[in-house]
């Protein structure tokens, strides 16, 4: 037994090593720009990023090209005819800069003064790392505390809900979070609104939602959605296992509407309920326990007329007897609905 466990452990270790690249442990070597080497050599940022200290929030990017490297007087005799960036930089870094430019309102000119020409005050990783040096949001907040307090995302973000790629430093929900977000959303709805527009909430909680949100994205099986399209096969099982959960988003009459539209249970003469659903005596009255367990499911089909159906039997002197459980009390006035269905005069029937 012990040798088998050892064998399994070795096999697992070998599998992890063999799959290290797939699992992301060993990244494919990518060229990155040697920011640190340049800084430690005493080369100031504006020498390559020409004009960056006066740059406004316009469309101009200040990413050095081959001409910048040569014009700075350092690399005026390149060792290769190919572009410098083809080996000494990576498109990922440039892509991050372009993405930041598109998503953020930012002007280096406004920040150069407060930073007193010290780029490393925000680009703190420049002394220790290469490649992309975009500051994290915590760095912004070290000065812009007020915007953080107000959650004024639009102070910096052009269109936060429209940014489909949340920064790595942010909360990213897994696909089950949508079904258990209630407690967190209750206390921090404005935090949710930082990223989600009203139509996101309405796609589940709205009574006029057109379809499952996953249905509109068939090519993205990872998209967050309260239900995957295959859910319809087991929805009755889910409703039975988690009574009351459906009505968090769906109106009680949703069941009847959908069944009618799909031609399920359209017969008015055939009961959809199993044998033993209703009858006289405890052995043939499954409907009572089911109704107490999930009254919302009953109400989804038996609305106004259904209530009349119930009180036909469940009345004092009727075969169903008093519908109230032992110890029942209510602060409802007798003349209010639904009391007055059995207590028309506001008193004992």
């Amino acid at each position: 037994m012990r040798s088998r466990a050892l064998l399994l452990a070795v096999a697992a270790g070998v599998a992890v090593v063999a799959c290290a690249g797939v699992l992301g442990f060993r990244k494919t070597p990518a060229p990155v720009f040697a920011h640190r080497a340049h800084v430690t050599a005493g080369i100031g940022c504006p020498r390559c990023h020409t004009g960056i200290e006066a740059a406004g929030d316009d469309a101009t990017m200040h990413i050095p090209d081959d001409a910048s490297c040569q014009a700075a007087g350092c690399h005026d005799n390149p060792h290769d005819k190919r572009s410098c960036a083809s080996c000494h930089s990576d498109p990922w870094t440039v892509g991050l800069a372009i993405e930041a430019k598109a998503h953020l309102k930012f002007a280096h000119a406004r920040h150069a003064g407060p930073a007193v020409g010290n780029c490393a005050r925000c680009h703190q990783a420049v002394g220790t790392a290469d490649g992309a040096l975009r500051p994290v949001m915590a760095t912004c907040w070290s000065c812009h505390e007020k915007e953080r307090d107000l959650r004024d995302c639009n102070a910096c973000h052009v269109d936060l809900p429209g940014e489909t790629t949340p920064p790595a430093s942010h909360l990213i929900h897994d696909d089950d979070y949508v079904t258990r977000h209630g407690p967190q959303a209750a206390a921090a709805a404005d935090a949710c609104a930082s990223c989600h527009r009203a139509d996101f909430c309405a796609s589940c909680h709205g009574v006029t939602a057109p379809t499952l949100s996953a249905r509109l994205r068939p090519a993205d099986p990872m998209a967050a959605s309260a239900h995957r399209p295959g859910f319809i096969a087991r929805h009755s099982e889910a409703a039975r296992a988690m009574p009351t959960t459906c009505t968090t988003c769906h109106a009680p009459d949703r069941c009847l509407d959908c069944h009618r539209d799909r031609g399920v249970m359209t017969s008015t003469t055939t009961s959809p309920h199993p044998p033993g659903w209703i009858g006289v005596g405890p052995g043939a009255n499954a409907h009572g326990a089911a109704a107490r367990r999930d009254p919302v499911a009953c109400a989804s089909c038996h609305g106004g007329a259904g209530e009349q159906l119930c009180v036909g039997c469940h009345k004092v002197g009727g075969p169903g007897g008093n519908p109230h459980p032992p110890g029942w009390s209510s602060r409802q006035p007798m003349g209010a609905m639904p009391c007055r269905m059995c207590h028309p005069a506001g008193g004992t029937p």
Partner: protein
Amino acid sequence: MRAALTVAATLALAARADAEPLRLRGDALASAQSPVGLLVLGGDGGVAPGVSAEALVWMGTDADHGDALVMAVVARRADRRAEVRLGRLIATAGALRPQHVDGVAGRARLPARFDVEAFGGVPVVPQLGVRAWDWLAGGRIGRRLGDWGGVGVAALERRSQGRLDVRELGVDAAVAYRKSDLAARAVLDAIDPTLADVDVAVTHRMGGLRVELAGQHRVASHLLPATSLFTVLGDVASDRLGAAVRWKAAPRLDLAADVGARAVDAEYAADAYCRAVLRLDDAGKGAITGELRRTGVVDGGWTGARLAVRVPRGAFTAALEGELVVPDVDRGRGTMWPWGLAALGWTQGAWDAAMAVEASSTPADRYRVDVLAQLGRRWEVP
């Protein structure tokens, strides 16, 4: 026709955009099975400094199918200390259930870290319908506790044809301490005083490991209008207690598991799932996920497996998704319910499209094959 007019009115309003760009999106979905067509139009943008609009409307191929999901104008102060929304919107206030309402909602940040939220209007009736004497009103007063938490008290009253439907009080709280946080909500049904709805979640993070303990208590009759006869049956509460673990086992591999126990009407059942997500690239554009799930309940348990793959190649994305569900009791509805979908997506600039084939065997249909086509486009008007 009414939906078309709604779209036109929304776009006309949005066409006045001047402060911020106007973003529009249209999606058309067609399928071989009924309902065969759906057009969804959404947009948002600034209509004046400090004023923005948001709308999402849809039209189906059936003559009477078409509606507005959201259609609201939002006015806010430049510092976001106050905001008012007018139109069709989702109103949320702490522990209360979200309400889909045609009306007005506002939020203000007061001194001493107090927040006030209030909303009122007419509950949304599908198909732009109207019911007389339906209205609702609610609100919440909350206080932020530094940057580590907050508490709030909320109330809601809803009337149907003038009769009392819902009257409830809610309390919510959230606290964060180092790598742990706690969030909770509780709702008291004030018509028939009962603690009707309680949700508590405690989360702790340790590096790549995230552990959550969650509990839920819910009384079904609380979800029904107070005018329903079913509220007097003396229903039983549904309770669940569970723990979820998510572990970032490798840079591209996430593992998740959830185990819980549920009690309904003196019956106890367990449910659990485990899932693995492997990203095929650092950005996660390609991914494979596999999941096993077990839901146990008397006369309604099932065991299922799900596999989904998404592989991008240039402008195209291939996706494969499948589920297999085995019910504990088939009751003549089939011993297995397989479902699968194969899709090919395409994205180029502002356009995206997808074509999919879906096949399933469900309790309602022994065999069902459907072909889906989706076409979407984004516009941005400066």
